[in-house]
């Protein structure tokens, strides 16, 4: 079948595509903040734990500093998340009616088991220093971190179910849950959960490392700055290679359950026998059904995706034209993600070398590199999500329910106007939110030299309760 159907052409701006654009826009803004919160919450729990264990004050200085950035990120995440929880209904009524009996339930579980836990203990964590004891406060911080992880669990269960559905039947044109365990632990779930959780830690790790590098470049050499830089690099050294291994396993899983997505990611049209080459770069063309200007490396495609010299990978032409994901987007977003992954690996390895040579805090070129890579976690995260979500098209529930069936019966004007409102409001509000986060990072952790002068304990406590005085002033 050599279809030249319009469904494979670039989107035109009807109500459906405006709704898709709106979802892509709002969810992309949203995901950045939870990712920061997930990684940062765990970091904060570690910092407070170290402070309790060692009694070193710089751990608390660091905690107070990063908890402010965490708070802004968390607030932005909640606010942009409220939009998401209503958008399924406003724009995607068809999907909600069909899939609500399963995805709606998973979302309810997320709110019940995770959001309340986070929100309930966040107040104590941020405002409770003088209201509860040290251990109770530490408990609150750990609960916030656990909450963010539970939240990741549920939302990825829901997303993974949409990617690789199982454990359901269809009754009266709606999903009917047969086996909740199968639904939650669907085939792609473990891989996606691991990949996303590590990604969130990497996002936070690079923000912390870059902030440390920035202040090292500015000449600060106090403990909170050095420790932030060093701890983040240790963690990234551990997680970056791990993430590459997990990503690879995730790829194998996708090849098994969503072969069309893999074909689109690789810009692969024909099913080649005796080993598939990897398109390093190129321009996939949905109309011409070929990838133009491709630079290929023989056998590498098979090697990466099947872990064998001449494993077979299905090409896009195996799938009817109306079932193919839009290759030009996923081809490139995947390469951005993977390319950044390689750069990250380079960075952490350089870090090890410098550390061995005792130059970690002095190598300015390296610190500039780290500052530059500060947003790399976020960019890779977004590129990865675009790859997996665009790669799922044209389905919302893979192989079961099409995106075109999912939209609400709205006209293009309504969706267009609301999109316009969201674009303006988001850039205005979250733009400023990001600006303040950067401003906070730019000021750096307060450093009280606890050895030089020992103020009255009560005064000292006071200064710790109100770190923003030092920062705002």
């Amino acid at each position, binding site marked *: 079948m050599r279809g030249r159907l319009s469904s494979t052409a670039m989107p035109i701006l009807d109500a459906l595509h405006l709704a898709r654009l709106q979802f892509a826009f709002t969810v992309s803004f949203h995901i950045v903040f939870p990712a920061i919160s997930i990684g940062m919450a765990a970091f904060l729990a570690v910092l407070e734990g170290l402070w309790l264990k060692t009694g070193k004050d710089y751990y608390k200085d660091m905690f107070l500093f990063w908890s402010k950035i965490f708070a*802004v990120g*968390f*607030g932005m995440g*909640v*606010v942009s*998340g*409220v*939009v998401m*929880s209503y958008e*399924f*209904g*406003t*724009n*995607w*009524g068809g999907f*909600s009616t069909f899939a*609500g*009996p*399963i995805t*709606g*339930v*998973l979302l*309810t*579980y*997320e*709110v*019940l*088991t995770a*959001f*309340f*836990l*986070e*929100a*309930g203990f*966040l*107040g*104590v964590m*941020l*405002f*409770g220093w003088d*209201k*509860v004891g040290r251990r109770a406060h530490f408990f609150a911080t750990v609960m916030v971190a656990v909450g963010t992880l539970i939240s990741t669990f549920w939302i990825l269960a829901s997303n993974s179910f949409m990617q690789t559905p199982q454990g359901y039947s269809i*009754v009266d044109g709606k999903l*009917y*849950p047969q086996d*909740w365990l199968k639904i939650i632990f669907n085939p792609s779930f473990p891989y996606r959960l691991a990949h996303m959780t590590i990604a969130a830690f990497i996002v936070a790790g690079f923000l912390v490392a870059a902030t440390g590098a920035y202040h090292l470049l500015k000449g600060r050499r106090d403990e909170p700055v050095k420790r932030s830089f060093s701890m983040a690099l240790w963690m990234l050294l551990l997680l970056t290679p791990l993430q590459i291994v997990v990503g690879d396993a995730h790829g194998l899983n996708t090849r098994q359950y969503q072969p069309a997505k893999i074909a689109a990611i690789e810009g692969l049209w024909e099913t080649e026998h005796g080993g598939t080459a990897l398109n390093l770069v190129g321009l996939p063309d949905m109309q011409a059904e070929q990838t133009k200007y491709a630079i290929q490396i023989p056998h590498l495609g098979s090697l990466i995706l099947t872990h064998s010299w001449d494993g077979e990978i299905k090409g896009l032409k195996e799938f009817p034209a109306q079932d193919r994901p839009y290759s030009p987007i996923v081809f490139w977003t995947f390469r951005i993600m993977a390319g950044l992954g390689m750069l990250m690996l380079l960075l952490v390895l350089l870090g090890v070398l410098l550390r061995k040579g005792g130059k970690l805090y002095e190598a300015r070129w390296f610190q500039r590199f780290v500052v530059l890579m500060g947003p790399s976690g976020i960019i890779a995260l977004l590129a990865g999500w675009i790859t997996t979500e665009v790669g799922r098209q044209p389905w919302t529930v893979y192989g079961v329910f099409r995106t075109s069936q999912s939209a*609400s019966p*709205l006209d293009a*004007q309504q969706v267009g*106007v*609301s999109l316009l*409102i*969201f674009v303006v*409001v*988001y850039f205005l*509000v979250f733009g*400023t*939110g990001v600006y*303040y986060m950067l401003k906070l990072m730019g000021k750096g952790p307060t450093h009280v030299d606890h050895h030089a002068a020992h103020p009255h304990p009560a005064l000292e406590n006071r200064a710790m309760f109100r770190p*923003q005085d030092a920062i705002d002033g």
Partner: protein
Amino acid sequence: MLNTVAPVWDGNETFMVLGGAALYGAFPVVYSTLLPANYMPLVLMLAGLIFRGAAFELRSKATRTQHLWDLAFIGGSALATFCQGVVLGSLLQGIHIVDDKFAGAPFDWLSPFSIFCGLGLLVTYATLGCGWLIIKTEGELQKAMYSLMKPITGVLLLVILAISIWTVLGQPAIAQRWFGGHNLIWFAPVPVLVLASAWGIFRAVNKQHEHVPFRLGLFMLFLGYSGFIISIWPNIIPPSLTIWQAAANPKSQLFILVGTAIVLPIILVYSYLQYHVFRGKVRENDPGYH
């Protein structure tokens, strides 16, 4: 004033998310018809919530632009409340549904009645806010709130009266529900208790009972929603969708019920602890972010 809610803020925001998510899980059809039918008010409500939520986090970090964030907080809160009221009003009017899909026009929600409901909800929330501040503050601010409590409760009573009459005149089915047969005898406690609560608030203000106005305000809100449910029952979206038709299948419901039964008590316990930790008055020089 913002300090009085700061510690419990995120928990309360979470209830907004739960509202969306629980509706989605338990009544997918309601979720996917009520929301598109009220598309514009909901989009504006979300925009309002964004401004309000962001302003809450950011105003303390701002230096030169703090008054702008205050404005964003006030405007956003008012807009979000107003839009919620509009949605409730449009729900009372009824929504045109065919085959589990919204089949009305984009501006069906817009009517003098729904606009009035929007304003009514503003008054309702203002009453509650006034009661809350009486509990959490002292001195000049508390005095000002005490003197505001009576007039605003009076306005709230007028609003409730107006909406009641308007609904009964405009919706014969609802009039039948309240006044048909012996129903009025059963439902009479609702309006009677509303009047009693208002009287209680007046008395509490005179006697300077700090906690009573807020609690009675909450009770009035509860009575309002009771009246609302009595009016539309067993419909969840009048005039055609009943709660039984809208409910998700038993298996989905059961799974939610199990989760809720286990988790809700735990949530209530730590929410209580949280309010307990942050009980008492909030003062000018308290540590805090805001």
